[in-house]
């Protein structure tokens, strides 16, 4: 797979291909697997993603510790805010839904990780619903997202323990922004700007889960990650460009991750996990977990 988004965009545009098509053909060559087989596997992932969205929206889930659950349904049935009735609110609900399923040890697709698994399905299935796009479009979007994620894995990191939350929900926001932009008609160049616009908004984001559990703030960070992806898509589709190339923004994310203190890398030693309330809740819940 590619090590640089600039190289991928250059090849796609030179050959008149979408990033999705380029990603599928490159994967097919790398793995000596037919494109059809790769599409089938992505189709299976899509099926699981849709299942997790549906399961989470019903709202009767509780996480292992009881810290999170039931909030996705509030965005479906709860009182209206300024975004009521828009795809934006629907996408926030979907992001919470998938992450609530994850916290309850349900079946999800790590994309790129389980902790950031809500962002991508929320953004692409929500946009597909709003725009009436088919599963084929969604499978293409997963291929584009995979290419972007592969570049992030090569240049920076996809692990909260290595790079903080910017490497999990931040990476997911970049993937969703690029994939979503292309899915609704943006060019490869616009998709690349969307990646940069999303990723710049998550630089420095720490990984600070209470008790080390993928629950709080992870569930909500998937919703805000989806919001950042949507903001990036909106700007990129309007023709806004980001002056620092996406590859360099990704490199910056890697650099910040390497410099980040270990307290902010999934160890529950700093950030929200280390607040007085964070410590108290974690202690109570971990005791409860042991009793089960």
């Amino acid at each position, binding site marked *: *797979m590619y090590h640089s988004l600039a190289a991928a965009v250059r090849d796609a545009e030179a050959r008149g291909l979408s990033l999705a098509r380029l990603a599928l053909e490159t994967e097919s060559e790398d793995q000596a697997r037919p494109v059809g087989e*790769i599409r089938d596997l992505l189709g299976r992932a899509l099926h699981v993603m849709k299942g997790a969205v549906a399961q989470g929206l019903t709202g009767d889930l509780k996480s292992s510790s009881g810290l999170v659950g039931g909030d996705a349904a509030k965005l479906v049935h709860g009182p209206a805010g300024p975004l009521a009735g828009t795809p934006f609110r629907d996408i926030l609900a979907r992001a919470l839904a998938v992450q609530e399923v994850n916290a309850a*040890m349900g079946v999800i697709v790590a994309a790129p*990780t*389980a902790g950031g698994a809500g962002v991508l399905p929320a953004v692409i299935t929500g946009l597909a619903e709003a725009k009436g796009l088919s599963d084929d479009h969604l499978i293409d979007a997963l291929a584009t997202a995979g290419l972007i994620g*592969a570049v992030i894995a090569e240049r920076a990191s996809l*692990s909260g323990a290595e790079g903080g939350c910017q490497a999990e929900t931040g990476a997911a926001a970049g993937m969703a922004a690029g994939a979503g932009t292309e899915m609704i008609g943006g060019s490869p160049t616009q998709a690349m700007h969307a990646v940069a616009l999303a990723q710049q908004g998550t630089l420095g984001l720490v990984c600070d889960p209470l008790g*080390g559990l993928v*629950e709080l703030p992870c569930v909500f960070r998937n919703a805000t990650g989806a919001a950042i992806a949507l903001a990036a898509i909106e700007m990129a589709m309007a023709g806004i460009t980001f002056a620092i190339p996406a590859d360099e923004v990704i490199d910056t994310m890697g650099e910040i991750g390497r410099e980040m203190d270990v307290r902010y890398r999934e160890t*529950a030693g700093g950030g929200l996990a280390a607040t007085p309330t964070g410590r108290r809740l974690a202690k109570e819940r971990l005791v409860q977990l042991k009793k089960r």
Partner: protein
Amino acid sequence: MVSLLDIIGPVMVGPSSSHTAGACRLGLLARGLVGGTPDRAKLELHGSFARTGEGHGTDRALVAGLMGFRPDDDRIRTALEIAEREGLDYRFEKTTLDEEAHPNTVRITLERGERHAVMTGSSLGAGRVLVTAIDGFPVEVSGNYHTIVLVAEDIPGSIAKIATLLADDGLNIANMRLTRQRRGGDAFMVIELDDYPDEGVRDHIRALPWVRWAFRLDKVSA
């Protein structure tokens, strides 16, 4: 090389790709080293695996892998109860392996009948794993391929013989690595294959008089 399907995947039981899915994959690879579900298992957790493992179901996922359950198998949730019912005697310990070890590392010691094995492996994030030591030999096994691991006497022509044997069975080698602790000592061979080697292939390798043991580790990635 990173694959699209590493990024969009795995399909897995939550909540953590490194602490749940990766742990399950490490269990699956360790299981391969004793050729099936072990009778007894000691799992030593290092770093973040030790600190936050319980809340992520790392313990359940490792034991699930030892029993052959894959990362998307619902039974991960109740794997400890299933293990107790089926007589898999497991024990967890918290430990500190060396300073350089990846934060998500486990050392697994297994017994199955007469067979013993010790494997050290790490979960690298996004469900990717790396086995770094088997029975004291430093190795690199990613689980991205069907893999044969074997220990043989260090004699001339051993690599050629095994390569020929695999070619005769129509198997293509993706990677092959040899490590030995000293000249003339035992050699540890890791052979990653593009195709699935059936039991017959392993039997052919085991039948070679200078091969001490050989096991097949099934591919754990998508």
